[in-house]
């Protein structure tokens, strides 16, 4: 009881000075609680909606018309059981334009053709609260998203053209089951009756369509049926998914997201821990006499240590409680943001497990960072009360080293707990320690570099440069926190700048910014003529494309582990590839091995493979690969390996390029890369004219996609900047806390200086220069780190050209210097105002 009572009494006395201790911790705790609560809420909501997300209990899909064999198997297995409902869907990309020829605009849409039973779960929410009914789609009805009305300048009741078919807009869809707001797509969503879609002639040869079969059935039936179907449809192009597998997958992905996001909060809490360490260090120095008195009146070292550990625990709990309150406010503020991003509007709130984790981490970090400085209490001698000498300097003994090591291990354990894996936790802890060491080392170098300033003619500069780096200077904790914050904020800005530069480069004047896809062979000449007439190119290039799947390499069959890999960018070779044929290298390709093509006429099919794929899958010239091209087996020999500059879109990019001859007679469609008209109106008119003449041809406008990508980039940059700003805010709080803790020392120095003749203005100048130097050191190191980060990210992660952006760096450095100087002087104002005698008497 004595321990708790003393801890409370001490906290009661010093809470104002320790306020910033609370705030440092509370920001980090609030970050963890907020991030985890939001992700857990989304996860719980999505889990409850798994069926609605999938739209069924069991969903099958294939990229192309149903294989009769596969369909027979499905019908045979799915027929059994009672209470089963099914619906067929078809989804394709196509162009839509107003029926009014005066409106020269067209747009790419994701058209979903649905059957009468759609949707099996959930419902379509229509504007105006109208209930959805399939009758709205019958007789060429169309339901669209609100943005398409604006894009085409049409309203409900107007007619639009899809291919050659006229459809009437009968309603506006605000939400559809299973589709999250903000999900990426090439075009906006639109709904028609499936038979109308098939009748519109959009599902001809070579068209990109996905065919789905959705099943609703009693609970418990889906998993067994899914297993049977997967077994029976092995090596077919059919994906089988259940609502439970969707839920499990989502749960895993969101769990990973939750862990990674909470690492961000952990970094901020760790910085709060740095603040704790800094404050407790000074706190212990100020408490030496009290500790000696307690030892003098009978207190044992263990009791006294327990008092201050209990005090830190009380403060940790208080800081955590403040953090939870801040998190409650943050979650309430984020609710509409989450709703806009995910469509989830209810149930987003503080989660008990997130609160417990965040508060627990706040308490643990506070204790771990406080223990090492508190160990100095052991060495306080009560005899210091008899002699006015200073207490003995802290000794780094075995207990100290053991405690420091143990704390390091525990911090790694905490990081591993938050990250969900020892590896990630170890990397984070190691990274934080590494960055801290670099920052502190760089700080020591900078302090040495400032030594010439100690011979300056100006008093303020001489005095301030002496103080920086001496005991009592705020350099180390501020360097760590402000430097780290500046590093993160500026680093993100530089990476974003590099990305924007790369995007600008990729949009150079001669690169294509439009792609025409699904051009049929009998349309090729006419499309070329159209492009010539439009001035898009003197010699328009139409690239033939076919889909092919690898079925054997060097005589060994490749297995199709999962159909989901076929459409994905899976690493396996069992996926479907888009291939082409031509006689020469494209402008963005370079030969690295073999010949493109050998001079001797080919006896069989020959193929060139992209270098990255060749290295990953260990393919070499001379290897024979068997392809399945539209059901026909073709064995081709690799005769060359080439690199592809994927950033140069002039000729697209292909993993496999065949030698002309074998595929020339195969039914292919064509892609035409082109440079579209410059003005928006001209571009819209061109697209419309194209779709009038060639209704099956889709146009992908790269400029629009890039605009969307830039928006996403901007959002990501904002999010990371917010995090970096939180780190900076922690740094500023640590600065204010450190100044607050050393206030009395500063007052004493100021009192002596005033007694010796210094004016308040001169003392203010000394403070401004001192904090300015500290800010300069922090900002310089943060900026240097940011420069390194942007280079490393560009070189090793994003493969981007590096642009140092020295202008941005200079502005950032100036901002940090000003911020630290202003905050430092502002927090020391009472030092300037206080009369010297009052201070000297108190001392």
């Amino acid at each position, binding site marked *: 009881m004595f321990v708790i009572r003393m801890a409370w009494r001490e906290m009661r006395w010093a809470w104002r000075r320790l306020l910033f201790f609370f705030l440092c911790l509370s920001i980090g705790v609030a970050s963890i609680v907020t991030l985890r609560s939001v992700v857990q809420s989304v996860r719980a909501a999505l889990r409850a909606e798994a069926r609605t997300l999938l739209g069924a209990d069991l969903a099958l899909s294939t990229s192309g018309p149903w294989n009769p064999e596969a369909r027979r198997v499905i019908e045979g297995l799915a027929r059994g059981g009672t209470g089963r409902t099914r619906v067929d869907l078809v989804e394709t990309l196509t162009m839509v334009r107003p029926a009014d020829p005066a409106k020269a605009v067209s747009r790419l849409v994701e058209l979903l053709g649905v059957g009468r039973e759609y949707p099996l779960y959930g419902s379509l929410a229509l504007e105006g609260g109208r209930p959805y009914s399939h009758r709205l789609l019958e007789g060429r009805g169309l339901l669209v998203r609100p943005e398409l009305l604006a894009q085409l300048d049409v309203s409900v009741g107007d007619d639009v053209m899809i291919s050659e078919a006229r459809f009437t807009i009968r309603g506006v869809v605000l939400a559809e089951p299973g589709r999250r707001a903000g999900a990426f797509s090439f075009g906006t969503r639109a709904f028609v009756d499936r038979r109308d879609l098939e009748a519109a002639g959009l599902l001809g040869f070579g068209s990109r369509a996905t065919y789905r079969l959705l099943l609703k059935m009693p609970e418990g039936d889906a998993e067994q049926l899914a297993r049977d179907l997967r077994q029976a449809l092995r090596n077919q192009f059919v994906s089988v998914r259940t609502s439970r597998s969707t839920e499990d997958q989502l749960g895993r992905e969101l769990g990973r997201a939750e862990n990674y996001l909470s690492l961000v909060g952990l970094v901020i809490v760790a910085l709060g821990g740095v603040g704790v360490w800094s404050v407790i260090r000074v706190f212990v120095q100020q408490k030496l006499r009290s500790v000696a008195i307690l030892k003098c009146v009978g207190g044992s070292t*263990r009791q006294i240590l327990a008092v201050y550990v209990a005090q830190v625990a009380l403060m940790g709990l208080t800081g955590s409680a403040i953090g939870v309150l801040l998190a409650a406010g943050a979650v309430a503020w984020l609710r509409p943001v989450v709703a806009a991003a995910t469509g989830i509007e209810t149930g987003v709130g503080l989660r008990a497990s997130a609160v417990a984790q965040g508060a627990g981490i706040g308490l643990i970090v506070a204790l771990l960072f406080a223990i090492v400085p508190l160990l100095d209490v052991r060495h306080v001698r009560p005899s210091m009360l*008899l002699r006015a000498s200073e207490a003995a300097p802290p000794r780094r003994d075995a207990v100290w080293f053991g405690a420091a090591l143990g704390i390091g291990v525990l911090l790694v354990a905490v990081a591993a707990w938050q990250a969900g894996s020892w590896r990630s936790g170890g990397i984070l802890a190691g990274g934080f320690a590494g960055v801290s060491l670099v920052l502190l080392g760089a700080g020591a170098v900078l302090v040495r570099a400032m030594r010439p300033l100690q011979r300056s003619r100006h008093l303020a500069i001489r005095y301030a440069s002496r103080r920086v780096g001496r005991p009592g200077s705020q350099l180390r904790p501020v360097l760590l926190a402000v430097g780290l914050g500046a590093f993160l904020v500026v680093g993100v800005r530089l990476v974003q700048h590099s990305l924007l530069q790369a995007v600008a480069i990729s949009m150079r004047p001669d690169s294509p910014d439009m792609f025409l896809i699904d051009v049929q062979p009998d349309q090729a000449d006419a499309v070329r003529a159209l492009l010539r007439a439009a001035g898009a190119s003197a010699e328009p290039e139409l690239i033939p494309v076919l889909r092919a799947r690898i079925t054997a390499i060097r005589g060994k069959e490749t297995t199709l582990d999962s159909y989901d890999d076929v459409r994905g960018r899976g690493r396996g070779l069992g996926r479907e590839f888009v291939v082409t044929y031509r006689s020469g290298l494209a402008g963005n390709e370079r030969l690295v091995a073999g010949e493109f093509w050998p001079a001797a006429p080919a006896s069989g099919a020959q193929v060139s493979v992209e270098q990255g794929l060749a290295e990953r899958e260990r393919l070499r010239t001379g290897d024979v690969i068997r392809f399945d091209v539209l059901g026909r087996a073709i064995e081709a020999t690799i005769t060359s390996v080439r690199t592809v500059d994927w950033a140069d879109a002039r000729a697209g990019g292909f993993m496999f390029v065949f030698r002309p001859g074998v595929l020339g007679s195969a039914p292919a469609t064509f892609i035409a890369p082109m440079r579209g008209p410059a003005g928006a109106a001209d571009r819209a008119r061109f697209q419309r004219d194209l779709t009038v003449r060639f209704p099956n041809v889709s146009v992908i406008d790269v400029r629009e996609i890039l605009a969307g990508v830039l928006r996403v980039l901007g959002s990501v940059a904002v999010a990371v900047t917010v995090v970096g700003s939180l780190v900076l805010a922690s740094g500023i709080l640590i600065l204010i806390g450190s100044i607050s803790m050393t206030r009395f020392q500063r007052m004493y120095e100021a009192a002596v200086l005033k007694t010796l003749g210094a004016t308040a203005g001169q003392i203010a100048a000394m403070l401004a220069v001192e904090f300015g130097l500290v800010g300069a050191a922090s900002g310089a190191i943060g900026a240097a780190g940011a420069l390194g980060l942007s280079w490393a990210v560009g070189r090793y992660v994003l493969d981007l050209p590096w642009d140092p952006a020295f202008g941005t760096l200079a502005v950032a450095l100036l901002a940090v210097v000003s911020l630290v100087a202003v905050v430092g002087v502002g927090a020391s104002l009472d030092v300037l105002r206080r009369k010297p005698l009052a201070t000297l008497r108190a001392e």
Partner: protein
Amino acid sequence: MIELQQITKTVQSGGRPLTILHPLDLTVPRAQFLAITGPSGSGKSTLLGLVAGLDAPTAGRILIAGRDITGLGEDDLARLRSSTIGFVFQFFHLIPSLTALENVMVPMEIAGRKDAAPRGRDLLAEVGLTDRGHHYPSQLSGGEQQRVAIARALSNDPPILLADEPTGNLDLANGQHVMELLLDIRRTRGATLMLATHDTTLASLADARLRLRGGLVDTGGG
């Protein structure tokens, strides 16, 4: 009660050894009032500190009630002080974050006494500070702070009271009040009192005197 056998204290000063106390033998019987006098730097505070276990002798033995305390660890010495020794400092050394009453209660709480609060109030009344218990040291005068320190020193009823220049930081009037208090307490409780002082008038009131000069001792009987 208190026995010092060949006690020596040497410290390092400027890299060279400095002897503060030369080998000293001293016996202080129970309930005796011993005044230790001598100029500044003669070793008065050091001697008191050694008796209280606040410092360790370079050589010799110290026995308190027959128990050799010379080789005891810090925590054992703290427990000894808690039960046996009350110390009053020249500069009061109250804990600034505690009220006057709490300062008096701390030794009793450390010893685990349940009656710390009522007993603390009684002690403050004994030193004439009944209404000042809720004030912090910064809100008390020097004399009041020293009276709180005396109350604190008495909180566990120690048989030994050590006072190092208790009036050294007080004006004449307050100093007199404090001394009267100390003598009165010593009389009523029968405690052994060792008092270091410059004041020869004060020293003349003692049962015995120990004069130190340059770390060497000259005793006189009472």
